[in-house]
């Protein structure tokens, strides 16, 4: 039975003013994209082609200049720079619990500790600060925070870049497990085609602000 798209993007345009404000550059030049519910789509493309801008628009952090976005359910974004994306002044458990506290969810701390366990971090380390974790552990922490609001759609913007290969493999496995157990729909943004092939059900190629092709990953 074919699944309905959870995410639907039509004619998305995002322009940025260049230095001086006289000229604009189209970061997104009419993006059309559907992502099937429960699947993982990898988005590949060279640097500056608009992948991260698309992620920011999908997460609601940038307002597009034209086009439409429809997402059924909560969207969460995991950034490339895990160290930078975690508040260095907060404890790990508070970082994970913060979205729950803000949205007045009960037992925020207990749920945050449970989420830490789910992503492979010991709940004993709840009081540690981000700088006390390794790069891979920080990315797990960022993932736990993203999962706190029980999203249906998870965007991973170069989330495995900068990690060494063995850690990349561990986090990629964790993502696959979480995706299956929670029925997540994922947009996996990367510039590494091999990594894209290892985690995705389908790969979309982006160039100059447009999706220029979609393909199934090569087996193996």
């Amino acid at each position: 039975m074919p699944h309905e798209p959870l995410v639907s993007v039509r004619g998305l345009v995002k322009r940025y003013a260049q230095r001086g404000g006289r000229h604009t550059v189209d970061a997104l030049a009419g993006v059309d994209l559907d992502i099937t519910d429960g699947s993982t789509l990898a988005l590949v493309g060279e640097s500056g082609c608009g992948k991260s801008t698309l992620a920011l628009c999908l997460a609601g952090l940038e307002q597009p200049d034209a086009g439409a976005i429809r997402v059924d359910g909560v969207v969460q974004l995991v950034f490339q720079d895990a160290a930078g994306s975690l508040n260095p002044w907060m404890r790990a458990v508070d970082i994970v619990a913060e979205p729950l506290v803000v949205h007045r969810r009960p037992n925020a701390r207990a749920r945050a500790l449970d989420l830490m366990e789910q992503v492979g971090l010991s709940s004993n380390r709840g009081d540690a600060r981000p700088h006390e974790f390794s790069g891979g552990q920080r990315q797990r922490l960022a993932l736990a925070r993203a999962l706190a609001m029980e999203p249906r759609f998870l965007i991973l913007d170069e989330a495995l870049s900068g990690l060494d290969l063995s850690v990349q493999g561990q986090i990629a496995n964790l993502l696959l497990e979480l995706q299956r157990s929670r029925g997540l729909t994922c947009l996996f943004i990367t510039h590494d085609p091999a990594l894209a092939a290892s985690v995705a059900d389908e790969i979309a190629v982006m160039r100059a602000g447009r999706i220029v092709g979609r393909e199934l990953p090569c087996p193996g």
Partner: protein
Amino acid sequence: MPWLIRRLAHAALVLFGVSVLSFAFLELAPGDYLSEMRLDPRIAPETVAALRARHGLDQPLPVKYARWVASAARGDLGFSFAYNTPAAPLVWTRARNTLVLTMAATLAAWLIAIPLGLWFAARRGGWADRAGAAGLAALVSIPDLLLALLLLMFAVRTRALPAGGMFTPGEAGILDLAAHMLLPVAALVLGALPVLVRHVRAAVAETLQAPFIEAARAHGIPTVRLLWRHALPAAANPLISLFGFSVGTLLSASLLVEVVMSWPGLGPLLVEAILARDLFVVIDGVLFSAVFLIAGNLLADVLLYVADPRIRTT
């Protein structure tokens, strides 16, 4: 805690330096309080000489300094020739009044500067931010002395507030003290506010560009919480250092404001003592000011240690 011991040792070294320099500069200035007495024909030269000997003023500088240090260690900070009384209680009472004024002004200045700086930072580049920057630039260009005089003029014209002193004669309640403090505190706060607000705005505006703020936004953290719970603690380090500096700035400004507004603090006492060459009162006054300054910076260091988890674990 070796860190605290190091800071205290550093503070002691600064106090030693300040006391030596105070003695040296006063020695360089021609004459002393007793030189004026020599001009009075009613006082016998032998009496003046006996007074000089009694207070050690006939001794060379190192001996004079060593005697003062030895007596200071026993709690005796010398003698005020002008007031004919031991200097310690005199200077301490005035220092306490200065401390009350400086602490109130420091607290008020920061309590206004933090929300205002956050508000401007959240609207950076907008019209409110630009208007605020222009207003602060205008305020910073007004000298503290002129600010104090303008406020004094306002108080005299409107009779809305007491125009000088610390208490109304016959009254010594906290409300009376608060009414008398309002004007000097306002002068000090208005003088310090532009620098503090601009620093808070700059530090928070820079932090708002940090990836973890973008990430917090992505996770639905509302703006007010983002500013107070995420951006402000992250921007706190330079502001805490500035806090120590602001104590010193407000203390210096308060000495001037006290003179203009007749606040019975160290300011008027120091001016009188310098003009009268009341040696020990000048030295004690300068030392008390140095102690406040050091205490402010020490407090800033302790706050920095408490606030930044990275400092504690490295």
